[in-house]
């Protein structure tokens, strides 16, 4: 097709999209007229699919910008991706402040959290161990991404008697010392940790101090450990 004819067809299609069919119908050459009509039909189809796409986009944008802050949106996105890749590892679907996971596939999820390009959590900011009562201990991880500047919190709950969580010290090197400290204070064991021993208290100390039912030992190497004095106020 020659360029003159191309230009003519585009002009006719434009006019046809606005509803003016006169110029197309008045072409005497039958081949040119049919080519112009085919191009017009194609253009109309393209315009229709764009229209149907736009309302969908508008709906999701409305939902995300009006009601929820961006970190909750990020939590939802992470939960959705975890449900796809690691089914069965979410403990509940609550995503307002944190993501609650089960401890079995934690090492794989952690590797994926660091390597996935849209998340890229390359920095473990803080790991807290906490005794939530009810015979449950929890380990809470706060992650941050230097690249995207977003953050999230992940919690893993374990029973008191058999508190074991897979260790992530191969992925974030600071988890080595954070996990040793959680082990020291609360007694949560991290399986796969290369050197899990007490870090702050002496090696022969008995008990896990930050548990709510901790009782201080009587003596340490001959020095009497005084009991904690209650009711002073």
């Amino acid at each position, binding site marked *: 097709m020659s360029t003159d004819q191309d230009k003519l067809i585009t002009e006719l299609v434009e006019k046809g999209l606005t509803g003016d069919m006169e110029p197309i119908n008045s072409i005497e050459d039958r081949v040119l007229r049919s080519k112009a009509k085919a191009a017009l039909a194609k253009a109309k189809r393209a315009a229709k699919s764009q229209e149907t796409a736009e309302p969908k986009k508008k709906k999701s944008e409305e939902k995300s910008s009006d009601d929820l802050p961006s970190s909750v949106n990020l939590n939802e996105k992470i939960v959705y991706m975890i449900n796809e890749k690691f089914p069965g590892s979410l403990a509940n679907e609550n995503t307002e402040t944190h993501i609650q996971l089960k401890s079995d596939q934690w090492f794989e999820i952690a590797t994926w959290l660091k390597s996935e390009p849209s998340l890229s959590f390359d920095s473990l900011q803080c790991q807290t161990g906490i005794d939530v009562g009810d015979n449950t201990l929890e380990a809470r991880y706060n992650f941050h991404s230097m690249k995207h500047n977003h953050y999230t919190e992940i919690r893993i709950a374990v029973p008191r008697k058999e508190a074991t969580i897979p260790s992530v010290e191969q992925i974030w090197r600071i988890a080595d010392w954070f996990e040793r400290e959680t082990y020291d204070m609360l007694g949560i064991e991290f399986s796969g940790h290369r050197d899990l021993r007490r870090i702050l*208290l*002496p090696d022969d100390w008995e008990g896990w*101090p930050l548990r709510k039912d901790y009782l*201080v030992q009587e003596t*340490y*190497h001959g*020095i009497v*450990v*005084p009991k*904690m*004095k209650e009711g*002073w106020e």
Partner: protein
Amino acid sequence: MGLLENRFNDNVIVEKLDKLLSWGRSTSPWFFQFGTACCAIEMMAAAASRHDLMRIGMIPRSSPRQADVMIVAGTVTMKMALRVKKLYEQMADPKYVVAMGSCATSGGPYWQHGYHVLKGVDIVIPVDVYVPGCPPRPEALIEGLLKLQEQILDERPLTRKMA
């Protein structure tokens, strides 16, 4: 000094020699900087240019074998208590101990729920002067050290003490 201590009966010559020895010991006690926590910063500030500790004869020494006075500045924990005792035994006689700050005196702000804090360093070593404060000002530390110097001046090392 072990041979001559507590040897002689009380008379004029022994008394004058005693005074000379005590004066020599008291006017230049070198201190062993054993700083653990916040009080160590005030000890360093006391040794710096504004409140000068060197003008009362005290130089910081880092080894216990070269020091006369051990200033325990800061909290002593259970893990550290065994090492404190060892360091005290490494010092040569005559030796004195100053407990600086509330933590070394009686446990400080950690007295109530501190399971790992030693409630006062006098559980493991004998203390001569207590300097209260959290942290004590450098002027307070200097007053405590001057009191220690008065105490040393009153000693009678050569005289035989009554039983």
